């Protein structure tokens, strides 16, 4: 079972797997502590991925591969050349067309059983509450800290788990927020960093790596096995292959989550 205690986001009324699903997911059903019940839990789960860029494309692809039942994808805009070094759900043929529709099409080619709600919007003050309310788990892949802090506010208010993925150049950060258990983003940084630039150096292999790790965090949360990064910040620098896991503290005076902790 998962070591970081948190209310089960999925519940116990689980759907049966059909013959095709058992065949498709056989190799992961063999994973100890996961099994057929873990697969049923994935089938019953819904996950919000925002946005579907370098990080979110890979997160969504891995969750589609793993057999998550429903993905809600939130991503505005149209495909540009500068997306194509890392956004693996976008294609040259789709240049100028909707990013989220490209993501939907590519994911359904891979897993036609997947339910997808594709929303051509980024997270804003207007839609954040509704987006989070649609799902069991949130995966934050947004480039703007304003979006990240809005998602954080909503997952704390709605008591839902969130996996926070980030990358820069050859470095990556990853943590899992379990409201009431772990620090939230507001504990760590209550306002967006001032010098941050929307566009920054990165390789697709870096965003892809952290996207895979983020998807695995979500799978563990949903299937309730293993140990998540709640209360920990994973950092790595692929320039020299330094990997660390740091303990992070919640802020006992956090304006968002202090009251939700025992």
């Amino acid at each position, binding site marked *: 079972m998962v070591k970081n205690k948190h209310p089960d986001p999925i519940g116990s009324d689980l759907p049966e797997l059909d013959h095709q699903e058992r065949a498709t997911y056989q190799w992961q059903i063999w994973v100890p502590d996961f099994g057929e019940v873990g697969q049923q839990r994935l089938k019953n789960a819904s996950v919000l991925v925002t*946005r579907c*860029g*370098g*990080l*979110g494309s890979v997160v969504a692809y891995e969750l589609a591969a793993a057999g998550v039942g429903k993905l809600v994808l939130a991503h505005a805009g149209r495909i540009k050349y500068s997306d194509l070094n890392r956004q693996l759900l976008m294609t040259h043929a789709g240049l100028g067309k909707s990013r989220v529709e490209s993501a939907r099409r590519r994911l359904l080619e891979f897993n036609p059983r997947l339910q997808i709600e594709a929303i051509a919007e980024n997270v804003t003050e207007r839609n954040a509450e509704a987006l989070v309310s649609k799902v069991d788990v949130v995966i*934050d*892949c*947004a*480039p*703007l*800290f304003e979006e*990240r802090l809005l998602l954080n506010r909503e997952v704390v208010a709605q008591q839902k788990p969130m996996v926070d*993925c*980030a*990358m*820069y*150049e050859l*470095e990556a*950060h990853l943590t899992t927020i379990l409201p009431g258990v772990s620090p939230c983003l507001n504990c*760590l*940084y*209550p*306002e*967006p*960093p*001032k*010098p*941050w630039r*929307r*566009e*920054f150096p*990165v390789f697709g292999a870096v*965003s892809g790596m952290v996207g895979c790790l983020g998807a695995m965090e979500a799978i563990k949360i949903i299937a309730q096995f293993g140990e998540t990064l709640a209360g920990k*910040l994973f*950092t790595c*620098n692929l*320039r*020299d292959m330094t990997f*660390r*896991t*740091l*303990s*992070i*503290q919640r*802020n006992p005076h956090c304006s968002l989550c202090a009251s939700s902790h025992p």
Partner: protein
Amino acid sequence: MIIRIHYTTQLRMALGIDSEDFEAPRDSTLLELLQRLRQQHPEALEKYVLNARDELQPSVLLCVGDRHVGNDLSGPLQEGEEVTILSVISGG
């Protein structure tokens, strides 16, 4: 005493180094260490870590060893400890 400082992300790019060994008086606090670092790298440290009023920038995370220390900069450091300065990053 010698403290090893690790720099990450934007701060690492601004300084052009991943880490350095820094000489600090025995029993220096984390605040005193950062003040000395700011003297050595004034522009980058003030922009990303500690402003001129000795306030931490809101987007910096400080770790001593593998432990995040929050906003408490008053603890004394020990010889051989390692301090990591993390600037938060996002996605895209």
